[in-house]
């Protein structure tokens, strides 16, 4: 059975393309959210196995959302993504409770799948 994914990004265009890309790669995209608050609500409602989480969000940032998810009940696997480079976030990436980081330049089903299967 394919893995369920929630896409969190404030750019609707990016979400649309990412949904199609991941679905073409065999993922089951169960929902989209455009900010941190709706992401938390969507996780509670949809219980996705995986969250593709943009770091820069209008209301908060991906690190804060990942922190909250790690302490809430559902605890989905979280993969951070951004159009900024990993180096731009310095040590915050390493400290966050996530599976990893994919630069938006490198986003593909294969890249996401390789991070998603790793043990937390």
């Amino acid at each position, binding site marked *: 059975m394919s893995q369920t994914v929630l896409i969190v990004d404030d*750019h609707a*265009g*990016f979400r649309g393309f*990412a949904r*199609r*890309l991941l679905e073409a790669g065999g993922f089951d995209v169960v929902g989209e959210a455009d900010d941190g608050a709706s992401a938390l609500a969507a996780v509670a409602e949809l219980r996705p196995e995986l969250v593709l989480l943009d770091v820069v969000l209008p209301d908060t940032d991906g690190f804060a959302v990942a922190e909250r998810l790690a302490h809430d009940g559902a605890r989905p696997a979280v993969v951070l993504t951004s159009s900024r480079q990993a*180096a*731009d976030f*310095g040590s915050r990436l390493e400290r966050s409770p996530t599976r990893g980081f994919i630069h938006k*330049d490198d986003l593909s089903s294969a890249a996401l799948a390789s991070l998603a299967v790793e043990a937390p």
Partner: protein
Amino acid sequence: MSRRLLIALAVAGAAVTGAAAVLVLLAHDFQPYGPAEKVAQVAIGGIWVAAGLIAWQRRPGNRVGPLMTAVGFGNLAPFLYWDAALPFTLATLIEWLALPVGLHLILAFPSGRLSTRFERWFIAFTYAAVLVGSLISQLFADSSTGCPDCPRNLLRVNLDAGVWKVVSILGDLVLIAILLPAVVLLVRHVRRATGLTRRALAPVLLSWAAAATCLAALLVVDALGGKTEETALLWAGDVAFAAVPVAFLVGLLRTKLHRSGVADLVVELGSLPPPAQVRDAIARTLGDDSLELGFWLPAERRYVDADGKRLEADPRAGRAVTVLEPAGERLAVLVHDPSLLEDPELVEAVGAAASLALENSRLQAELRAQLVEVRASRARIVEAGDAERRRLERDLHDGAQQRLLGIRLALQLARGHAGDEQAIADLLSEADAEVLGALEELRALARGIHPAILTEDGLAAALSGLARRTPVPVELSVCTERMSAPVEATAYFVAGEALANVVKHAHASRVTIDVTRANGNLAIEITDDGTGGADANGAGLRGLRDRVEALDGHLQVECPSSGGTRVTAAIPCA
């Protein structure tokens, strides 16, 4: 206070002292001490009266003079009773008044005023209690017991020893009710005293303590059965007690002595010294080290100090404020020790003497205030520029970059649909490579405007990113402490510009970047082993120097004879 009253009091003081001395020498044998020591005690009373009258004459508005005079007369009174009932009765009636007068004197010293409502109530109570207590005790006291040679007490009405006992106990209780709060108030008076007051109080307390110590020692000697008539302690105590009025007088007149300093002040300020020296000279003349001098800026309606920084001139605890308006026009303000208010003429004289220098200093302070303002606004411009750069970087990231990323994903999808159409797949790949190139350029542009990592993770992380992207090997040593955003950004841009110059012109094989924090400064040093010859006045470095100086820092570019280039910057970051 009229001259006539002063003369009358002086004559009375002399007469009383003379009479007391004669009486002590000729008439008395009911006192336990020898005649020589008695005359000394009379002389002390005379000294109190004389010192009090001098104080009264020199500081007419101050109660210290009258109070000291009263203490003197009070001291002389007990010597005036010769072997007659009336003077004896009167003298014993006022004998105890020395206590409230003495307390009033020391609590009101040196201003002459009692500072709190409680003090005023307490002193009023003390006067009343002692007067009433003396009267009541005179009604019941039997002078024949304890003082067999004393004259008859005219006020005596009751012979009952029991009543006298009760009255004595009540008297003791009243005495305790006076002495306990007196000690508390005294300690508080001394502790509250600041600067000038403290200096005036010190000799008084010292002489008083010496007198008290002698008295205590005397009592001990007495209790041990020693003969007090001949003891040196008695004389030492007399000397100490005679020093008390002198100490009061000196303390009181000390500020008066400062007045002779006004002439020196005129000479010193004649050369129109810089504002800070004007303050020091005035502080010296007024004898108040804590003095603050503020210059009035009429246009902005505020005071500034010698450095042009804002000075708050509101009266606050332990500070008093005097506005100097020598020619009716506000010039400056003194924030000073409240005890200076006792001598407003001195402050006024100093203000008048200093007016020319103050006017001159005010103009200088005004200039400095403008300089302070310019500096602040320069720093604000840098901060505003940084904020704008951050906004631009975010806009580039959120806008164009996101769209380009969307296009890349679309191209990926399209390639998936291209199937076997190799030509289309190749075209899509080429388009993707173009978009990727545009993204890279956009990112480099955004980073140049303001590197996001600087805000996220600080200078050390941002510089190591910068070093990674530099084609010349960079050796980095950066302190990891976070500093304010303008300081971090300035340091980053200095390093960035220096590195860019190295890459462009220096032909260097290695660069070292050293960032340390010491003595409230962030020091950045970028050294290379290239060909040197950097142009310190090139547009890039000149812009950076302006930026560094806007934060009160310095930037230096050197080309040592040993070769290479060294760019150093120091930015205050305390």
